[in-house]
């Protein structure tokens, strides 16, 4: 092969070319610590080269790409339904949100308006995804500081959300639930779904949030370790393109659900004048790790209230956009009961058929738990996307990380990393 791997590529050289790192004084106590890529405190496969002055971080150079697996190249060879399996594996902490965001972008490309029932269920599930993600992040914030209990309180309830995801999609971890124009199948039984959700909403999750808050909010060690650590000013948050809880903790009011509403966050979502769900966007102005924690806890409560507004009013009717648009997967009654259903199912599955795709480009974004998750799709009329680019919130949010840790102790590195909630699979794709 025409390339060689040189043993010492010299990260020193890399550091020198990063401008904002230049100011630091070279002291005699400098030493370099290679943090990761395999290290439990990095949560996933991240590598940081930390130049330390005693125990203080003088410079930090993040190296990413250890989990790069060419998802965007795969998108050009998988059709619009197949790619959802890959999308699920990006932000694996709340995979169902990725599914919903991807198919929302695809439906915008196709010009499909999904059914009210599907909108409600997708909103409910994406809020459950948000709860799933924040519970992990809040729990892990405690774990990073050595408090194992908080992690278990958070993780325990995630388990029951997995049960719910399994109930609707058949898979616990990576649901691959959505399809163009709807979902893979309707939920098996509305009553069971509502009962499971209500048990979560009314008993399990509030209890777990209470536990976490009692354990952490006034915990002297926790507060002291997080207050004033990793501060982002609101100007920096805007300039560096932060989104999601990280931006809102810095006082930037940016939430795609309010700015560019979609699904049930939009007025008149069912076409009959239904009001958008009511929720408030929690904002903190400190911009440090503790306010990122508080914003996430508050968002958990908002998510519960959003689901509670919808759970009793799941509309009847079809789940998928059917025969008119020729885009959605028909349900089994349609497939086994009519020739049109069979034809439509086969056309979607066969390699030389598929959708009547428009030629054009769309960018569509939705509010994932970590921030704005966007997809830029270039379509060429084929069954696969010509180019499907992802805007992963972790990737953009991680840029500021090197700036945040500089000047802090090495023990603060996992705390800041955890508060940004970087998911490496989404970062590297």
């Amino acid at each position, binding site marked *: 092969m025409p*390339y060689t791997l040189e043993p010492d590529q010299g990260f020193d050289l890399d550091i020198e*070319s990063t401008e904002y790192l230049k100011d630091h004084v070279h002291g005699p106590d400098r030493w370099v610590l290679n943090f990761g890529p395999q290290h439990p405190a990095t949560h996933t496969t991240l590598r940081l080269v930390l130049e330390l002055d005693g125990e203080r971080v003088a410079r930090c150079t993040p190296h990413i790409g250890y989990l790069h697996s060419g998802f965007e190249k795969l998108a050009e060879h998988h059709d619009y339904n197949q790619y959802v399996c890959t999308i699920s594996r990006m932000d694996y902490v709340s995979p169902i949100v990725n599914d919903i965001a991807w198919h929302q972008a695809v439906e915008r490309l196709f010009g499909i308006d999904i059914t009210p029932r599907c909108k409600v269920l997708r909103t409910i599930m994406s809020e459950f995804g948000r709860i799933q993600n924040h519970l992990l992040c809040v729990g892990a914030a405690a774990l990073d500081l050595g408090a194992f209990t908080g992690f278990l309180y958070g993780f325990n309830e995630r388990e029951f959300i997995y049960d719910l995801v399994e109930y609707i999609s058949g898979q616990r971890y990576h649901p691959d639930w959505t399809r163009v124009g709807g979902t893979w199948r309707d939920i098996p039984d509305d009553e069971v779904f509502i009962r499971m959700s209500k048990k979560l909403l009314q008993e399990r999750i509030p209890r777990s949030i209470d536990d976490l808050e009692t354990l952490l909010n006034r915990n002297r060690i926790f507060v002291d370790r997080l207050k004033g650590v990793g501060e982002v000013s609101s100007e920096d948050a805007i300039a560096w393109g932060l989104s999601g809880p990280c931006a809102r903790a810095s006082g930037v009011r940016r939430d795609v659900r309010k700015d560019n509403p979609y699904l049930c966050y939009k007025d008149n979502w069912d076409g009959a004048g239904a009001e958008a769900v009511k929720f408030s966007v929690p904002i903190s102005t400190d911009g440090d790790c503790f306010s990122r924690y508080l914003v996430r806890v508050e968002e958990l409560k908002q998510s519960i209230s959003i689901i509670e507004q919808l759970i009793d009013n799941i509309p009847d009717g079809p789940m998928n956009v059917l025969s008119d648009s020729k885009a959605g997967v028909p349900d089994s009654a349609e497939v086994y009961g009519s020739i049109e259903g069979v034809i439509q199912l086969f056309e979607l599955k066969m390699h030389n058929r598929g959708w009547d795709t428009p030629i054009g480009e769309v960018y569509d*974004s939705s509010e994932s738990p970590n921030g704005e998750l966007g997809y830029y799709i270039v379509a060429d009329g084929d069954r696969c996307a*010509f*180019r499907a680019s992802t805007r992963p919130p972790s990737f953009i949010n991680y840029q500021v990380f090197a700036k945040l840790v500089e000047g802090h102790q090495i023990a603060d590195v996992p705390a800041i990393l955890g508060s940004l909630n970087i998911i490496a699979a989404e970062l590297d794709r």
Partner: protein
Amino acid sequence: MTRKPVLEHPTLAVIKKAFPDAGLKATEFREMTTVVIPREKIHEVARYLHDSPDCDYDFLADVVGIDYMGYPVEQPGRFAVSYVLASGKHGLRITLKTYVDPSVDTSGIDFDPELEVDSITDIWPGAEWPEREVYDMFGIRFKNHPDLRRILLWRDFPAHPLRKDYPLRGRGEREHYQTLNRESR
């Protein structure tokens, strides 16, 4: 499915007035307005969109590279760079796009003076990593970028893999991986 684009985006009139002779072109698809800007003007227009109070695009959502080789509709150049901007104050989104054409063979990582676009990191610092990703995946370099290294792949990876002439399964990089051990140092 052809439909005439509706060019009603309020920013269009503003930039048309500010840059009368820049050769800007606008198009619209599914409520997404795209302004195609010549390569030399992209930094100037982006600066205007960021600074002017009529526009106030403070949020750069993403920088996307696209390779149009084999695209059914003829494009002004082979590669494109798209910038997705959003304005929190006006609640608007707009996409800027610029095209570049390669002058050398695109299968390797050879230096190509033509594949260069002005960096917008001085306007939105958050463009730093997205631009590095575009450079990594497409080989489009960004002039005046503070730290233009490859980001996801290693420095010597022999191709820019999201180009359309790079095969899905690679060119054997995985199979012919050179292993390093103590002796080879």
